[in-house]
């Protein structure tokens, strides 16, 4: 009776077992200049990992209380207005033209006119932390330095106003994008605190090669604006990230207030994809992943083995990583674990990630754990 029951249960598991459909992903090749230099040796390693939850939760929102502007010595001689809405701001002046020496600066507040050094708690090089006693509001930064090329000599004046209530936050809807994806950028700021609605909202997408692509923001609600753009760059970003820069300018108590913020996003060309994962055996635990490749490169496939705890929650216990040189076409990559699996119902495979070392970026990710008994 026991044997019959076991046989029936076994047949049931076998009939339920199937190849888990992984998300279909179109692949796209790119010109990889460095890929041929990568190792062609297949290497594999697994190790136990902590049973802490793994997650893809990611928030790339960045909040800024700062702004910067490029000014000439000529403008500084006349006086450059700086709006500082909180106490203890940091003003940093950096020369942008070859001359290294910074002139002496003067800062004028509502109450005082002081050298920037005397107005500061601390000063090193071109960075000055203003004394709290100077308060906030409209300031004028100037210098009495003379130079016949005053209109050509340039400085970057950066203001970190981090005790102010006025910020600009920027984020994108995802952290990673692939060729053809639409990137949606959202910016937030306390628009109600401005004298009137802010009309000067701008931004751009910055590629690793320094190309800037302007973004057009549309208002969603007070203090929230979005911009959308399709990413269709066909070049390899070589591990670098893209950036979104945003800027707003408005008026608060008649003071011009500017904020600039930025956030990063990841981008890759889908040079390969994992189409399926098959279970080869339990003792030892082995899988074969089918990989469709568009670009000759070295790829690393990583996967995590999960085990159910006493409450049935899946927790990661072991990770495996296999790297292989793969030419264009279909391939199999072996994934081996050392964990001795007693009951396949209690284990799952997940956190599948394929990294293209030619781009130093993931080109495929699937993070839903698949119970082993469901894998054929």
């Amino acid at each position, binding site marked *: 009776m026991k044997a019959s029951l076991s046989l029936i249960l076994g047949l049931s598991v076998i009939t339920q077992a199937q190849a888990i459909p992984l998300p279909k992903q179109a692949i796209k090749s790119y010109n990889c200049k460095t890929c041929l230099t990568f190792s062609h040796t297949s290497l594999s390693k697994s190790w136990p990992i902590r049973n802490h939850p793994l997650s893809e939760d990611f928030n790339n929102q960045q909040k800024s209380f700062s702004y910067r502007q490029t000014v000439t010595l000529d403008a500084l001689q006349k006086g450059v207005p700086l709006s500082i809405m909180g106490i203890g701001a940091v003003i940093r002046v950096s020369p942008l033209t070859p001359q290294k020496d910074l002139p002496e600066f003067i800062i004028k507040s509502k109450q005082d006119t002081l050298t920037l050094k005397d107005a500061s708690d601390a000063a090193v*090089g071109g960075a000055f932390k203003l004394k709290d006693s100077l308060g906030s509001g409209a300031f004028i930064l100037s210098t009495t330095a003379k130079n016949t090329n005053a209109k050509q000599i340039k400085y970057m004046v950066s203001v970190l106003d981090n005790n102010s209530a006025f910020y600009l936050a920027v984020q994108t809807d995802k952290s990673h994008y692939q060729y053809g994806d639409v990137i949606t950028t959202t910016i937030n700021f306390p628009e109600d605190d401005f004298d009137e609605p802010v009309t000067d909202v701008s931004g751009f997408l910055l590629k690793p090669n320094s190309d800037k692509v302007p973004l057009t923001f549309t208002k969603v609600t007070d203090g929230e604006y979005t911009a959308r753009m399709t990413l269709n760059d066909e070049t390899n970003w070589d591990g670098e990230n893209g950036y979104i820069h945003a800027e707003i300018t408005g008026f608060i108590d008649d003071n011009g207030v500017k904020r600039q913020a930025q956030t990063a996003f990841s981008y890759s060309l889908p040079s390969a994809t994992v189409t399926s994962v098959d279970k080869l055996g339990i003792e030892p635990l082995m899988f074969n992943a089918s990989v469709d490749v568009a670009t000759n490169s070295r790829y690393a496939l990583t996967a995590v083995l999960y085990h159910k705890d006493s409450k049935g929650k899946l927790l990661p216990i072991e990770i495996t990583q296999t790297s292989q040189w793969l030419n264009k076409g279909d391939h199999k990559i072996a994934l081996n674990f050392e964990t001795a699996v007693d009951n396949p119902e209690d284990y799952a495979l997940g956190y599948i990630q394929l990294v293209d070392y030619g781009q130093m970026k993931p080109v495929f990710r699937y993070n839903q754990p698949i119970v082993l008994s469901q894998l054929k």
Partner: protein
Amino acid sequence: MDFLHKCSAVLFLLSSYTVHASDVPSTNPGIAFVHGTNDHRTDADGGYWKRDFIDTVALGQKDPSNTFVVHCDFSHYMWKDEAAGCVTEQLLNFIKEKSLTSLTVYAHSDGGNVMRWILSNPTYDEQNFELAQKITKVVAIAPSSGGTPLADEVSNGGTFEAGVGWLLGYKTSAVKQQRIGDMALFNNEILFASENRPSLYTPFKVIVGSDVTASPINSNSYCNGYWLNAALKITKSYLDTCADGFLTCQSQATAGDVWFYDVEKTDNYVTLSHNQSRHSCSGLERILKDDLFQSGEKA
């Protein structure tokens, strides 16, 4: 009878010990120091890491001569040949030359990212694979695991040349890498050991620097140069209350396990600025030496 039993037990234990001791392979551990951001091919030994610091830590091991100082160019992204490739080549040569059986690595600042990339990608190539087998522990001192807003500042224009130029230099790839947004992405995609990510094969123990002391009347301010610490006091304005002048405590603790915050173990409970956490300041060198000794590396 009891006496005979006791004698037999002692003889058995002695024979077991003898057999066990003869089975244990001889160990020959070593240590290596990995510098932070910038090109330190010529000044890592004696400049970035001071000799008295290196020599004191080295005393914690069985053979103090099993000590190496990595000297590479970390102005590049962590995975580049000039960075990770250089580190693996130098460390493997050191391991072979000394016939080491294991290696403890002390990495400062961006050196922690380079080490973490190597250990997160052990199958990248044969060198990473071989080195990952030998490294038994990484002590990451003030690692820039979560990046720094100062890198964003430098990337956006201008420099922190005066006083803190040694930290970042100019707009290099390493500066871009250590921006807050970039490190968050790298942690999420190509590095392990941060929250919600798989752990590393090797322990990654973090020492966190929590503040900057830069007062003319405080002797701690003078360790490794008053003006360098004074400069970090300014850059700390860009960071949190808990920060070493270059990195917030949160950034330092982003990956790995926090071993200790400076004040928990330093002499007189003083803090270590980013300029001090690679030098003989407030007993840091003694803390590392004692840990190395106690961890059994000195058999």
